[in-house]
């Protein structure tokens, strides 16, 4: 729950404003991007996701750093990814 997970924005959802499809660890997930809209979020941007909401835009290098940190967390990160995989945010 405390883990911020990086994801790459694939598309902004036209029909549901404030939502985006994001690539997180190879899976496509729906994420709420309303809290970073003022930063002008675009496809190709990397974002830091907390419990289904993007809280910050980050660059790709920071995303890779964060991913490697998370992978070292082991089970806690696997649990979080599993929870995210089962999430059906709409």
């Amino acid at each position, binding site marked *: *729950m*405390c*883990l*911020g997970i990086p994801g790459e924005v694939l598309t902004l959802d036209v029909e549901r404003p404030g939502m985006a499809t994001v690539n997180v660890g190879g899976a496509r997930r729906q994420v*709420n991007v*309303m*809290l*970073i*809209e*003022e930063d002008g979020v675009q496809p190709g941007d990397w974002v*830091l996701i*907390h*419990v*289904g*909401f993007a*809280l*910050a835009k*980050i*660059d*790709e*290098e*920071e995303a*890779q*750093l*964060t*991913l*490697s*940190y998370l992978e*070292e*967390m082991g*089970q*806690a990160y696997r*649990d*979080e990814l599993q*929870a*995210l995989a*089962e*999430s*059906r*945010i*709409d």
Partner: protein
Amino acid sequence: MGPEGMRFVDEYRDREKAQALAANIATLVEPGRRYGLMEICGGHTHTIYKHGIEDYLPEEVQLVHGPGCPVCVIPMGRVDDAIWIAEQEGVIMTSFGDLLRVPGARGSFLDAKARGADIQMVYSPLDSLRIARSNPDRRVVFMAIGFETTTPSTAMTVLRAAAEGLENFSVFCNHVTIIPALEAILASPDLHIDGFIGPGHVSTVIGCEPYRFIAEKHGRPFVVAGFEPLDILQAIQMLLLQLRDGRSEVENQYTRVVPWEGNQRALQAIDEVMEPRPTFEWRGLGWIPDSAMRIREKYARFDAERVFDVPATRVADPPACQCGEVLRGTIKPWECKVFGTACTPETPIGTCMVSSEGACAAYYNFGRFTRLRVRQAGSA
């Protein structure tokens, strides 16, 4: 991850760079003076143990592990209240997975689930909202927990529920705020803290400005830090430089992610939906004024404490458990009487052993690298 990404990661793990930083840190330390530096965030605690950061530091520098693990600080009474709500007629209780094993006086969510309560694990409060929509004849409650990294998400979810006119969704709000907890720690007489390693992701939301009182009123340097081993070593170097020069300022080592002003949109969402509680109990730290959030009157129908007649249970922490002293940093995890014997990650007595970011679990999992163990091995 591509080779470019790996190279960048390697830079932040580079042993030579770490040793160069360590050598510089050693020059900043006055021999014989003790420097107590508190890392607030459980994520930092995890990195410190995982990478044996203490092994790079001179004896004079003591890292103290702070209260920044939200699972670790939730009092047993709130867990009992949540279980009471879960056991009411027609309720579906939804919770982050981290919380399922946290013990209250009447067991954990998992125990209540085994007794027949409908408790479902969710990744996001938005999942709870979906469950509410698809179960109109049930009352769906979201067990909200966390510091300012998760509070905006709860607030945004309440706003969404209000916009949709949902009538069967409410939040049992346990969100806590880091600043009053730091004030309580600074007021603690048995504690010697010279500076703070500030939380990375919480600061993404609240920014760096709220920490100014720690620097200005309490005269303690404060450096917001990232989660890589070199980030933490660099933050320690920045703290020691301030202490050597007699300065106390707020600095941001983690500019890669943390904007000085935080995320205004997230703060506005919190302020729209929530207000500070007069007081809130923290496990191990006791009652701290203005240290948690509750739902505003305007959104009362989404507030589980108003929707249900919650018993407001108060339970003393288990006597064998020394989580409070660990959270205040007055003892190290391994100095607790039940550490690693009666209390383990599999059968936790205290919350610090439940969460992977709790100081006890982090030490239990990676403790072989710590300075104490190295010394013991050397003298054996």
